[in-house]
Structures are given as structure tokens and as C-alpha cells.
């Protein structure tokens, strides 16, 4: 028998605190679509996506009605497209990109991830074709997202790949200058990329995944924030461990809603259920913010000393609650800090409290990395490479995922305001304290070896 307080608390989470299923992402393996003629590959890719994902949106909407949970996004991730581009050209890459984009549109999907390459140890010809095609691909498609993994804890950091990617980010932003460089917002550079994350723009279907799989991303920063508020209203002197306990309990409930939706979607579509990714992913809406959680904990000015500790507390408590709730927790699972997509973080940048360097420290303990960071349009590619190398080093050394999604905004300078609209939000252009000086280091290229696995102090 369900108690009335339990019913009302669940209704409150869903109605008033913005708890939703942020994304149901179907992962599809496209390796069986490979063909010597790219046009045939494109036909097979479209057919397979239509076959597997044709009923995804309808099924999600039916379950949304049944349980009263908003399933905000229905998305696709595919196996790395670079695997279909071996022996192909840049124009072939564009044909494949359009096929993916068109297929996503046909099944009613807003974003499709997996135009990706894993180049942490070296670059194959197909991966090089994919990377070099990105400025054209991301400026000529609507739904396609890309990710490049440049480092792992086991392989170290491929600096040669970072050099290419830094340049590509600049070119992609410039190719979409009429949209304020928005093309770069659809490209994530990773260290230790997860194979099963449902969140864009970094979702792809890894080689360890089944032919077709449903992964779910649940959000809910508003629920966590209100839980802390309620605790502090009742017990104003609550200690940080008591706050962590409250976050943990809330994360349990949030995770369960995601697993319920994911399992039932998978069952109805006759595919395997993969993971629920419990990432506190904000939106620009007030009441749906990670930054507001830190403020509720007592960090008045986000970026002040103590902010990194607050991120660590939140990230760990979320993971613990999620792990207790489900044996199928995966992806990134933790706290995102996408600056543009979170009004409180964006405000902290505008106030000058939150700097790029402080964000970098926070990424050492959050679940992703430097996400949705606006940079000056005239920033050097080598400086972007330096930012990527620093983040990759944090991920590789800490044995965690770090992602870098930076947007050099053509024609805009440090401190200027940019608005992408919608879920991508708005914000102030940031810049490193030192805009140059790493060129020689970056241009040496080569490989930063994998870190030692012993002597861990």
C-alpha cells in the first residue's frame, strides 16, 4: 500500500520541481551497414535507423502519459561513424552525415550522436577523414552531433589528435559564424569517453554495446535543490554530511523513475535496456539549475573557495544514491556544470566570480568537464588545444571522464554576451587568464604517456 505522503512527494517532484526524463536515447550499431559504395551505406543506415527507431517517439509519449513524467528528448546514438569511413573521402563523409541527419528527422528525433572517432592511441585514415570533415558536416546538418576521444587512462593523451581537434573547433565555429559558432556546440572532445552515455552532444554507441539498446538520462537538479531547501527549513543547522544524505535519498528516487521508463521503452520496442545515466543536467530555466544547489548548500557566490568541495559532495552523493537505486547505472552519472545551460552558473561568470581556471578545478570532481564554454572568436587554436590537454590530463590522471565543449564565437570578445536560445542557453564569453604561451608545448605533438598505476600518493 502506498502512503499518502509518498504519493504527494512523487507528485511534487514531477509537477513542481522539474523532475523529468531528460532523454531516452536509442543506441544503434551501424557496422553492418558498411559498403564499398558510400551511397549504399547511406541507404542501409537510413533503413536500419527507420527500422529500429521508427516507434521510439510514440512509445516514449505513451509512457509519458501513463506515468505523468515528461520525457523531454528522444534521441539516437550510433556506433562511431569513422568505422564506416575507412577508405572513403571527405565528400563521402558528408553523404553519410546527411543520411544520419535525414534518418533522425524521419523518426522525429532532435539530435543524433555518434559522428565520432576514438583516436586516443592513433588515427586511422577513416578517423582522419571524419575529423577533417567536421567543419563542413556540422555546418551543413541540423541534428548530427560529434565526439572525438583523444585520451584514456590506459593509453595516455594523443597530442597529435588534440592538435587536429583544436583546429577543427575553430574551423567549425567559423563555418557557423552566422549562428555565433553554434556548430562547435555539437562537438565534444573527450578523455575516457563512456560507451553508453545518452546525453548529447557526446553520446555514441560503443563497441561493447548490443546491436540496439535503450539508455536513459534522468535529470532533476530542481528536485535536489528543493530537497535541500526543505531539509534546511526544518533543520537550519544541518551539517554537510546531512545534506549529502538528503541528496543521496533524492538521487535514489530520481534514478528509479529513469529506470522505469527505460526498461518499459526497451520492453515495448523489443530491445535491450542499457543504463540509466543519473546526471544532474540543468536547463536555463530557474528552478532547474545545478548552481542553485551549490547556493542552497551555502556557496553564496559560485566560484568562491569551497565551490569545488560542494561539487565533489554533490557528485559523490548523486552517484551513491543512483548506485543504490539501480544496478544499471552508467554513462556519466553525476553533476554536470554546463555554464551556458545553467542560469546560476552563467550569472556567476557574468559577475566575474566563476573563472575558467576555477571551472577547471571543479571539473576534477564533477561528472564531465568544461561544458558549453564560450571563448573569444580570436582565440588561437593552440590555446584551445592547451585547454583540451589540461582537461584530458585531469581525466586521465583521475581515471574519470572529462569532456570539453568550447565554442569560440566568431567576432566576439571576452565579456560579451551570447544567446543561443532554447536548451543551449546563453552566457558571457570567458577567456583563460593567460591567452597564449602554450604554443611550443602543444606543437611538439606526439603522445603524453599513460599515467603510472602504482605509487598513487
Amino acid at each position: 500500500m502506498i502512503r499518502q505522503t509518498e504519493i504527494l512527494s512523487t507528485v511534487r517532484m514531477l509537477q513542481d520541481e522539474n523532475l523529468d526524463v531528460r532523454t531516452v536515447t536509442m543506441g544503434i550499431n551501424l557496422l553492418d551497414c558498411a559498403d564499398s559504395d558510400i551511397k549504399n551505406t547511406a541507404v542501409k543506415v537510413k533503413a536500419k535507423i527507420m527500422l529500429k527507431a521508427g516507434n521510439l517517439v510514440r512509445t516514449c509519449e505513451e509512457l509519458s502519459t501513463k506515468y505523468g513524467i515528461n520525457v523531454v528528448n528522444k534521441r539516437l546514438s550510433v556506433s562511431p561513424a569513422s568505422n564506416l569511413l575507412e577508405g572513403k573521402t571527405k565528400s563521402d563523409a558528408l553523404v553519410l552525415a546527411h543520411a544520419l541527419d535525414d534518418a533522425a528527422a524521419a523518426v522525429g528525433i532532435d539530435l543524433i550522436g555518434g559522428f565520432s572517432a576514438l583516436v586516443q592511441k592513433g588515427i586511422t585514415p577513416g578517423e582522419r577523414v571524419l575529423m577533417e570533415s567536421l567543419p563542413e558536416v556540422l555546418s551543413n546538418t541540423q541534428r548530427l552531433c560529434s565526439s572525438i576521444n583523444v585520451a584514456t587512462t590506459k593509453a595516455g593523451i594523443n597530442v597529435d589528435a588534440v592538435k587536429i581537434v583544436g583546429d577543427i573547433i575553430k574551423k567549425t565555429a567559423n563555418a557557423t559564424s552566422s549562428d555565433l559558432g553554434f556548430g562547435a556546440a555539437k562537438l565534444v572532445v573527450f578523455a575516457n569517453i563512456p560507451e553508453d552515455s545518452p546525453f548529447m552532444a557526446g553520446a555514441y554507441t560503443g563497441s561493447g554495446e548490443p546491436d540496439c539498446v535503450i539508455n536513459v538520462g534522468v535529470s532533476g537538479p530542481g528536485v535536489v535543490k528543493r530537497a535541500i531547501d526543505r531539509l534546511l527549513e526544518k533543520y537550519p543547522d544541518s551539517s554537510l554530511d546531512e545534506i549529502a544524505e538528503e541528496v543521496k535519498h533524492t538521487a535514489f528516487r530520481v534514478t528509479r523513475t529513469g529506470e522505469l521508463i527505460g526498461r518499459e521503452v526497451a520492453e515495448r520496442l523489443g530491445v535491450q535496456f542499457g543504463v540509466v545515466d543519473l546526471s544532474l543536467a540543468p536547463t536555463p530555466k530557474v528552478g532547474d539549475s545545478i548552481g542553485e544547489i551549490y547556493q542552497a548548500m551555502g556557496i553564496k557566490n559560485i566560484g568562491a573557495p569551497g565551490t569545488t568541495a560542494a561539487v565533489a559532495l554533490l557528485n559523490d552523493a548523486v552517484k551513491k544514491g543512483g548506485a543504490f537505486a539501480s544496478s544499471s547505472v552508467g554513462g556519466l552519472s553525476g553533476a554536470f556544470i554546463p555554464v551556458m545551460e545553467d542560469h546560476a552558473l552563467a550569472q556567476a561568470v557574468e559577475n566575474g566570480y566563476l573563472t575558467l581556471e576555477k571551472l577547471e578545478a571543479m571539473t576534477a570532481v564533477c561528472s564531465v568537464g568544461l561544458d558549453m564554454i564560450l571563448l573569444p572568436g580570436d582565440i588561437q587554436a593552440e590555446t584551445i588545444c592547451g585547454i583540451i590537454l589540461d582537461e584530458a590530463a585531469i581525466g586521465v590522471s583521475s581515471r574519470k571522464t572529462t569532456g570539453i565543449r568550447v565554442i569560440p564565437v566568431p567576432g566576439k570578445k571576452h565579456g560579451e554576451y551570447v544567446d543561443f536560445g532554447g536548451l543551449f542557453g546563453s552566457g558571457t564569453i570567458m577567456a583563460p587568464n593567460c591567452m597564449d604561451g602554450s604554443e611550443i608545448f602543444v606543437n611538439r605533438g606526439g603522445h603524453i604517456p599513460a599515467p603510472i598505476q602504482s605509487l598513487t600518493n
Partner: protein
Amino acid sequence: MAEKTYRYIITLILPDRIGILKDITTAVADAAGNIDAISQTILADYFTVTLTSSFEKKQDKELLKQTICDSFTKDVASVIVLEHNASSIKKANTRVERYIVTLIGRDSPGIIKAITTYFAAKNVNIEDWSIKYEKAQVIHIGEVTIPSQLDLKQIQAEFAAAISQFELKGTIQNEIIFRVTNEVGSIRNFIT
């Protein structure tokens, strides 16, 4: 118990005090009845219990009622005894799913009438309904079963229309969402 038993439904209402349940169960047990189900609540300080009891021999309903009343001579109690008649119970032969209905907002006359009228017209069976007040708001929570063949989206839209004359926020959600967010256990067990 013997193979053939006689089952009775007994309902008792009286002002609440400590020991009521003890008194009625003692009365039934002393009459050689085996209590096999109890549902009890306190509403506006009135204790209400409905129980079923099986007997090896057919009972005189009036005599059984008097036996129970004798245990409550100091109370203003109302007792009803009915013979359980399985053949008189009309059960719809359709597949149903359990949903939780919630309504939160400003109280006003006619809310329950509007809802029950709509649900009855749609063959939605109300199995439990409760009302409470929190701050200045009325909160209705109901457990209902909805025939599976009905279009849930349409039901939700019509339900919203039925309550649109009141200042209320209403939801109809499958009960599983409330179970998975509050109970520990494998999700697979809830959806299969």
C-alpha cells in the same frame, strides 16, 4: 475450519476510543467466527471498521449483530451485519490497470460529484478515496482502476475538463511510478 463455511461482512461505526478493535474481535471470536479480513480507519474522530468473518455454522444476522452490540453498550455504536453473497458481486470482465488520482487546490462544493460522475460514466472504478487539508489547500487522493482498452490520454483530457470549473491541479498516473520511487526492489518486478 470446515470445508463449507458461512461468511459475513460486519461494519461498526462509533466515536473513537482505545480498545474498540479488541472489543469487536473478542465478540466475533467468542461467537466462533474466524476473522479473515479487516479494514479500519478513523474519520473525523469516528472509528470505522469493516471486517469479514467466517463461521462453520450459518448465523442469524440479527443475533450476531446483537452479540456485537452487547460489547458496546456504553457507546453510541452503529453495527451492520450482511451475509457475504459471492454471486451478487458484479465484477467487470475486462482488464484494468491501477491509477492514482490526485487533486490539489482550493476546496469548493461539488468536486467529488464532478469526479465520481465522470468516472462512473467511463467505467472507472474508485477503490479508495481520501481527502485532507494542508495549509489552505484541499488534497484528494484516489485509487482507481481504469479499463485497459480506454485511451488514457483521452481520459486525462476529459478529467481535466471535468475539474476545469474548480481551482485544482489534477493528475492521473499509473500507480507503478509511486511504487518504484518509494519502494526498494528490482524495477523488473514492478513492470512485469
